[in-house]
């Protein structure tokens, strides 16, 4: 959408739309459609998670006890707050208050930064203990814990797969496969989102947006909220449930 602000301070919609609000509606619909693809993409991972968790629950249970719930919770709070400041960023744009909008957007980026830093410490902590997916996994203690957990389970709940000790030891890293793929893909989205927010921040600072036209801010906002939304599900699934 090539919307430009002209000399006299008005916004012009692209030639194939009738009006700014027509363009706004279309753009928003496009962003929503894109959000659907995001949901389905992460959805694939969630389906795989659900299936493996119902087959190999002990691995997931023991695995989640290796993660730091405190760090996870702080990250959740940080991300929720960033969603809030993002919503404020849109609000101030709607109200024609670019200065406040810039502050809100900057806070969002700061939150994204905090999130990534905490994530970095989490990752290094886990990787140092050898809790890496498949090929590089090196933590016999974890494998032993899974086996111990299974041998403490009530007999009537056991399935033949779980009773096979050697097999369970071999596939124990599966949990960290999921952990790294899911949080990794999510982290990638956080970084992309931060980049996009920086882009709209600069444009807001340059006075490119106002109450009449703030579509990109709204679109980036939707993207950022989806990132938040996915984390809302990821956090309990990876850190708490098991």
């Amino acid at each position, binding site marked *: 959408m090539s919307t430009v602000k002209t000399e006299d301070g008005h916004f012009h919609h692209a030639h194939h739309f009738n009006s700014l609000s027509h363009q706004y509606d279309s753009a928003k619909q496009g962003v929503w459609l894109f959000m659907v693809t995001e949901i389905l993409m992460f959805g694939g991972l969630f389906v795989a998670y659900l299936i493996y968790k119902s087959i190999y629950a002990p691995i997931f249970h023991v695995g989640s006890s290796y993660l730091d719930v405190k760090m996870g919770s702080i990250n959740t709070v940080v991300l929720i707050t960033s969603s809030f400041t993002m919503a404020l960023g849109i609000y101030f744009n709607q109200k024609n208050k670019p200065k406040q909008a810039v502050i809100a957007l900057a806070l969002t980026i700061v939150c994204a930064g905090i999130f990534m830093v905490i994530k970095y410490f989490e990752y290094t902590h886990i990787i140092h203990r050898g809790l890496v997916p498949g090929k590089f996994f090196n933590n016999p203690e974890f494998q032993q814990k899974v086996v111990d957990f*299974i041998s403490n389970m009530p007999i009537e709940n*056991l399935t*033949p797969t779980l009773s096979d000790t050697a*097999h369970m030891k071999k596939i124990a890293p599966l949990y960290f496969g999921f952990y790294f793929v899911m949080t990794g893909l999510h982290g990638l989205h956080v970084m992309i989102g931060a980049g996009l927010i920086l882009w709209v921040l600069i444009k807001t600072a340059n006075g490119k947006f106002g109450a009449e036209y703030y579509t990109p801010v709204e679109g980036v906002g939707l993207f950022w909220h989806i990132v938040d939304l996915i984390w809302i599900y990821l956090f309990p699934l990876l850190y708490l449930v098991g």
Partner: protein
Amino acid sequence: MNNWLNIITANAFMPIQGTEIAGKVDNFYAFLLISSLISSIILIGGMAAFVVQYKRKSATDKTAYITHNTMLEFTWSFIPFVIMMVIFYWGKVIFNELRSMPDSASAEEIHVVGVQWAWNFKYKNGIKQYTKDNDPNKQVMVVPLNKPVKLVMTSNDVIHSFYIPGFRNKQDVIPGRYTSLWFKADKPGEYQVFCTEYCGLQHSQMPATIIVKPEAEYTAWLDSNKPSMAASGDGGMNEMANKGLEIYENKCRSCHSIDGTKIVGPTWKGLYGAKREFESGAPVDADENYLKESILNPAAKIVKGYPAAMPPYAGQLSDDEITQLIEYMKVVK
């Protein structure tokens, strides 16, 4: 091209029928062939007729203005629907038959392992590799005539697929899992086996042959090719059962007898296939699943008149060891 005439006998171009089910598949095939021929004659014939009859005659031809006809449209949605439901049901019946395994007591069980790029067949008496003309690439599976054969299949590396055109049957062979397939050959002869799941460089060079022999010849073959090692075991015991015997000696002997006496737990004599009654719950036949469950999780079903004393062996015995134990139970008669 004799095949052309076979359209009437309803197995045009299909390979020879090696099983009874193959005949049923071919009847279904004939139905599909003929009904599809009729449908395509209606569709393509109608199209051709209209193209010829309503050829444009002048640049200003007037055409009829027909937008729709609800009754007609309903008819040609409904009739295909009915036909397709018939096809679905017929197919489902055949599919169920192809997939419902014979009970293991009456069937000959052969283990199949797919590797890149060969099939390995393992018999219960220890025959592992049997090849034609001493060519290591020509794997042969010998099976008895008129007796159900159950193949228990797995793969060592990637997915393969075990396909016997003559029996109209096929099943993927998946690493880390067992899949199974059964057939009852009713014509002696040689049948080709293909791998039909793309598995890499020599996907097309995984041929094997199934040779169907009358039961007497089959037993003779089994005996003459039995590895010498199995012969040193006691009586007709197979290789797997031998290993099971070892485990029995180490772990089970103190509670289970093999001569019918009651120690702590029930005897294993004649256990396999017998009907078991429990303290609670319906009686079941002692098949592989029941036995495996009772080893891993004895508390699930307590045999009538015995204490719930056995510890669970979950985590202590591997899948292979359990299979060997069960094979051993089968031979304790």
